[in-house]
């Protein structure tokens, strides 16, 4: 095909369209006349000649169409006209168009937002080269709890085994740091040499920690590699930072290197700001050699994680025997040999946020996808409604020679335009929906910094989704359009009847049903949150401050709790505003679910489990826990007298103690010094910090009887402004030596912050449920409005023959209510059937709670009535004269 002439024609067809059209018209008219002349010359009468001539040509307009199809640039030209036509159509019905665009924006925007969050939580990879090639080796005890691995084993893994290169990693604790006079808090990780090589990262300034800096068997060099973030924070990006001094916790260190921006270790949530060799700035004790929480490494080519696990499993006993025992004994005393090792992919890094929220998040994403389905359904029904109204127009177009393909294509263009507008609107909506999420999820760790803003990949998916929706939604009415009869129906009174109308009704009912289900879920979750917050924690919460103490480096060496704490408490009580102070090991910062088997000594286990806490003698009194029977700890309970415990009410009941438990002997877990405890008292139930578990089975041991005691929680009665008191507590503890205050909170705030997951679920589901209902109402409103527009003549007639406007209005509202009612009925039944799915997230509320269902149903019904108000008013205000005149 010769290119140049085609381009010329293309250009001409585009720019000089009118001329081309006119020329075609002239040509074909002329041809017709010639043909007519021919026939007249052959003897036919003029009108006959014309008729036959037209028949031979096949009609002027259809012929024109066929010639047009042959023109170059046909598709673009046709598309251009379709777009113009579609735009005109969209402009002419603003209510429908805005309803459609809004629907799409809501559906796509919500989906984009939720998908962004899920992406950030579950899919995002670490900012290192080949993140999927990074693996981590961890060991787990039989309860599945992760345990530490002695660091010296890392040398062995570098010599033999499935790793090309391995390094030990122990990170995630935050410390106070200071440099250039600027104090800050930073999260630190302790790594062996080669860690940066394993991760695939090189410092941009200085060098990385090498094997020489981290000998493991002896103390490491006091050097640190800092993150780009910390570099700017403390050194203002000074390029001469290498060798400068930085104080970490109580040690002085020098800066060895600065890492590239964007890289912050394997902790996806918080990032690590300081990398240091083990046993350097935080010295290890001689009884406690450095341990790693994971061993990071890259596997040898061709080795799968399963093979690696098996290999290390085989090497494990020999390795442990070699390495110097270096772990702290946990309360069970199980040794490492019994642990299971596992090699897991580390591409996404460690993320506590992910672990906490992944399940809730997937449910939310599921709901949001449902919302998009709803939006599509909504849009489909709106388009169908319009189609029914346009059947006359379509009939005429088909009669004039339009092809089904043309009509279908034009409707698709309209759908695509609407969804394009909706998608564009959806983007800022998505950003807005994502904005409050970090605040909701923030667990308050130092340096927590997850970004949920939609990244380009998510936005691209959004755009595609928007387009797909547009195309998909137009296929529904197109199916109906193509079934259109060619016969032109010029009836002047068309009420919305027929198959299209049935589909519309069905879709609307489905919409209402789905939104009812989602709303019920949202209400259940919200009530659940409310219940949790109303739970009686069993302790006094007002005016109570909870401080958590951690040891400074070397602080525990030679520590004597009996000599250390009483003077500290005296000093603290001297602070103005401070009342009584109690000590506890666990309360109120309960972490995890460490329960152990308990039973009476000499009896069969009843299957009861409990958790342990070590508390000072005045703990119950200060915390407001009531003694129910027996006694509490006294000064008579010493290290030499028999070990006594106080148990909670719930444990007493769980032990099936028909009679008195006072005086009976209890066995807790399997540790030797906890197998013969005398129960001296029972106290009322109290939480250990988790409101979802306000009545745990608790065994309280006396701190004064413990062999060693450190890192306590302090429960402090305060009066007045807590801020200066908190500052004074920090100062006093630090000055007293050995320990520092790592966290200090008011107890009521601490407890309230606990059910974060429930709060997030409730808020997000309420948001989505609300959106769903909004969509359904837009749908109902749209359909009713269009119905009124279509039936203007009918309404005009009714008003003219004496109907009262109120009756007409009432009719419209009734139609809306009936639709809503059916939808609500279906929705309530569906929600009832699906209630089980939500059960694990609920607390204190039954999944089939009748109050919730009833309230939601009533609410949606009321909205359904409301949705009909505006169309009803429009119906009532129809002027019969005008309506009947328009034809």
């Amino acid at each position, binding site marked *: 095909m*010769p290119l140049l002439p*085609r381009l010329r024609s293309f250009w001409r067809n585009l720019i000089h369209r009118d001329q081309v059209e006119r020329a075609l018209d002239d040509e074909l008219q*002329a041809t017709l006349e010639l043909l007519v002349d021919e026939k007249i010359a052959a003897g036919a009468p003029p009108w006959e000649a014309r008729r036959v001539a037209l028949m031979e*040509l*096949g009609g002027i307009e259809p012929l024109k169409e066929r*010639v047009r199809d042959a023109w170059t640039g046909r598709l673009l030209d046709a598309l251009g006209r379709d777009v113009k036509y579609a735009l005109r159509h969209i402009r002419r019905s603003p209510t429908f168009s805005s309803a459609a665009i809004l629907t799409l924006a809501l559906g796509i925007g919500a989906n984009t937002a939720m998908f962004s969050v899920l992406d950030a939580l579950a899919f995002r990879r670490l900012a290192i080269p080949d993140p999927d090639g990074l693996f981590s080796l961890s060991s787990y005890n039989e309860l599945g709890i992760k345990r530490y691995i002695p660091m010296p084993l890392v040398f062995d893994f570098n010599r033999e085994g499935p790793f090309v290169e391995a390094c030990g990693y122990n990170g995630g604790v935050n410390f106070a740091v200071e440099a250039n006079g600027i104090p800050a808090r930073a999260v630190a990780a302790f790594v062996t040499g080669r860690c940066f090589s394993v991760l695939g990262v090189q410092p941009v300034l200085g060098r990385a920690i090498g094997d020489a800096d981290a000998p493991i068997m002896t103390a490491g060099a006091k050097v640190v590699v800092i993150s780009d973030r910390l570099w700017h924070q403390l050194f203002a990006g000074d390029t001469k930072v290498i060798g400068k001094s930085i104080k970490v916790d109580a040690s002085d260190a020098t800066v060895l290197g600065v890492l590239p921006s964007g890289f912050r270790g394997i902790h996806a949530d918080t990032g690590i700001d300081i990398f240091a060799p083990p046993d350097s700035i935080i010295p290890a004790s001689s009884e406690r050699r450095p341990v790693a929480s994971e061993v990071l490494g890259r596997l040898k080519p061709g080795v799968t994680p399963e093979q690696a696990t098996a290999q290390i499993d085989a090497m494990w006993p020999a390795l442990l025997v070699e390495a110097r025992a270096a772990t702290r004994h946990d309360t069970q005393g199980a040794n490492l040999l019994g642990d299971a090792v596992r090699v897991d992919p580390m591409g996404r890094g460690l993320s506590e946020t992910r672990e906490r929220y992944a399940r809730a998040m997937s449910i939310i994403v599921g709901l949001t996808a449902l919302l998009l389905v709803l939006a599509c359904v909504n849009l489909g029904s709106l388009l169908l409604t319009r189609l029914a109204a346009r059947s006359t127009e379509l009939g005429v177009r088909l009669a004039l020679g339009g092809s089904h393909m043309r009509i279908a294509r034009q409707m698709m263009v309209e759908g695509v335009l609407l969804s394009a507008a909706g998608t564009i609107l959806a983007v800022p909506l998505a950003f807005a929906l994502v904005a409050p999420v970090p605040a909701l999820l923030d667990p308050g760790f130092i340096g927590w910094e997850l970004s949920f803003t939609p990244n380009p990949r998510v936005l691209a998916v959004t755009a595609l989704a928007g387009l797909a929706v547009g195309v998909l939604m137009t296929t529904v009415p197109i199916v109906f359009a193509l079934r259109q009869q060619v016969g032109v129906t010029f009836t002047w009174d068309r009420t919305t009847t027929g198959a299209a109308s049935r589909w519309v009704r069905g879709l609307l009912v489905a919409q209402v049903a789905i939104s009812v289900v989602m709303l019920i879920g949202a209400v259940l979750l919200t009530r659940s949150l409310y219940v949790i917050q109303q739970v009686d924690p069993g302790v006094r919460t007002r005016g109570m401050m909870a401080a958590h103490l951690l040891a400074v480096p070397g602080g525990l060496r030679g520590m004597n709790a009996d000599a250390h704490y009483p003077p500290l408490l005296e000093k603290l009580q001297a602070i103005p505003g401070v009342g009584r102070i109690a000590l506890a090991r666990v309360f109120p910062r309960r972490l995890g679910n460490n329960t152990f088997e308990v039973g009476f000594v000499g009896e069969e286990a009843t299957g009861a489990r409990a958790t342990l806490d070590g508390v000072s003698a005045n703990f119950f009194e200060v915390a407001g826990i009531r003694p129910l029977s027996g006694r509490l700890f006294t000064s008579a309970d010493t290290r030499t007298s028999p070990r006594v415990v106080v148990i909670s009410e719930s444990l007493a009941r769980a032990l099936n103690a028909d009679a008195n438990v006072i005086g009976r002997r209890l066995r807790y877990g399997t540790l030797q010094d906890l197998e013969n405890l005398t129960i001296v008292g029972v106290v009322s139930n109290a939480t250990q910090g988790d409101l979802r578990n306000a009545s745990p089975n608790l065994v309280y041991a006396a701190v004064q009887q413990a062999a060693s005691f450190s890192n306590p929680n302090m429960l402090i009665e305060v009066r007045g402004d807590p801020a200066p008191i908190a500052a004074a507590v920090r100062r006093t503890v630090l000055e007293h030596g050995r320990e520092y205050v790592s966290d200090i909170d008011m107890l009521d705030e601490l407890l309230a912050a606990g059910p974060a997951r429930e709060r997030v679920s409730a808020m997000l589901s309420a948001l989505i449920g609300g959106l769903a209902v909004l969509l359904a109402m837009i749908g109902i409103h749209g359909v009713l409005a269009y119905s009124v527009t279509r039936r203007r003549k009918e309404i005009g007639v009714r008003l003219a023959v004496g109907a009262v406007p109120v009756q007409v209005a009432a009719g419209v509202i009734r139609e809306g209510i009936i639709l809503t009612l059916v939808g609500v009925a279906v929705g309530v039944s569906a929600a009832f059937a699906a209630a089980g799915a939500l059960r694990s997230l609920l607390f204190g509320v039954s999944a089939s709670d009748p109050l919730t269902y009833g309230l939601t149903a009533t609410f949606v019904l009321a909205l359904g009535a409301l949705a009909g108000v505006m169309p009803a008013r429009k119906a009532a205000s129809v002027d019969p004269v005008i309506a009947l005149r328009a034809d």
Partner: protein
Amino acid sequence: MSSRSNILQGTLDMLILKALAPGELHGLGVSRRVEQITRGTFRAQPGSLFPALHRLEEQGFLASTWQASENNRRAKFYTLTKAGRRQLDDVTAQWNRIALAIGHALET
């Protein structure tokens, strides 16, 4: 929107070019001439003829002018361009080759 197969379309194009070889004609005239030169075997329907004429013109094989027809009506006349003549030679040669080959095939 051509519903003809490519072979038929190519054949029609060739006949149109051939019909215009002696001199210019308007659309109807081309139709008559094609009927004539194929001894009535081919009747170019207006529905395929006019699109073909326009297509050939766009491809640069035909040129058009507005002139007076035999009964003094204004009509659009088509004529072969130089490229059109070359194209006619090419497709004629091609057609002959095909006819020969098919002829051989049918003989055996």
